[in-house]
């Protein structure tokens, strides 16, 4: 029998292998092995909201297409995905304890907490022309009047469904399903290449 002691951080692969790619003023990189948890629950239930806040250290965002963030050691970013659905990004490995904490907090409530850390991959984009690059495949209006830092939106880029987050003026993340990551990456790189005249 081989060693069955669980070591969560070895033996892992990610679809983009942690790639970093500068093109013109834009840098793309894979944000490897981020913890991701999907939460479902009733936003009209105060007990649910309180329990979520307790477990996450930050309230669930209730306004559509916004995020709430907790900074520091237990940093999390919580995305609004739908009227009863949220997604939590947390540090690599922290999702295991966070999942348990949420499950404990939600005991007796009708909720669903699901580990989707490997379902999705996050690509980070930095640079002054990232919004132009995103316009190469995404139909959203990313003008700062309509899509501000702190906003998120689910949409598509080319043929991939995405969750887009404007972290700051020139800093975005795109979350995409694991199996669409390479396609999205190639699309972004090739499109950025045509911008870099």
């Amino acid at each position, binding site marked *: 029998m081989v060693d069955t002691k669980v070591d969560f951080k070895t033996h892992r692969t990610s679809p983009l292998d942690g790639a970093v790619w500068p093109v013109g003023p834009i840098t793309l990189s894979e944000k490897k092995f981020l913890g991701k948890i999907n939460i479902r629950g009733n936003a009209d239930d105060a007990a649910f909201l309180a329990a979520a806040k307790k477990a996450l250290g930050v309230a669930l965002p209730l306004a559509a297409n916004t995020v709430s963030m907790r900074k520091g050691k237990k940093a999390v970013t919580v995305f609004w995905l739908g*009227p009863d659905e949220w997604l939590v990004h947390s540090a690599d490995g922290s999702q295991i304890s966070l999942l348990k904490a949420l499950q404990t907090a939600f005991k007796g409530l009708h909720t669903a907490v699901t580990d989707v850390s490997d379902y999705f991959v996050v690509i980070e984009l930095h640079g002054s022309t990232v919004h132009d690059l995103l316009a190469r495949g995404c*139909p959203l209006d990313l003008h700062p009047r309509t899509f501000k830092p702190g906003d998120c*939106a*689910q*949409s598509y880029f080319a043929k991939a469904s995405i969750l887009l987050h404007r972290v700051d003026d020139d800093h975005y993340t795109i979350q995409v399903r694991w199996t669409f990551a390479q396609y999205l990456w190639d699309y972004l790189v090739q499109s950025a290449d045509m911008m870099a005249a």
Partner: protein
Amino acid sequence: MLLIQCPFCGERDLTEFSHGGEAHITRPANPDKISDEEWGDYIFFRTNPKGIQYERWIHSHGCRRWFNAVRDTVSDEFLGFYKSGEQPPKIKRRKVLRK
């Protein structure tokens, strides 16, 4: 390209959505108790109006929520959007053209 007002996410391009046919068709409560005709009506027959239609949409590339819309099938104008389970708004058909 149509511009659709998701009741949750706001205005988005048609390409983020999928159409779900006529709205407010309820599944019969006791399928075994109804006639073949009634069952056939439920699974096969739709109104297909020229003019105002109440129809279902899902924000497939967005929040993945079903909702309803009122659309004039002649002008393709949307006259209202409302959440699944809500009562449809009363809508009068607008004149198609404006100056």
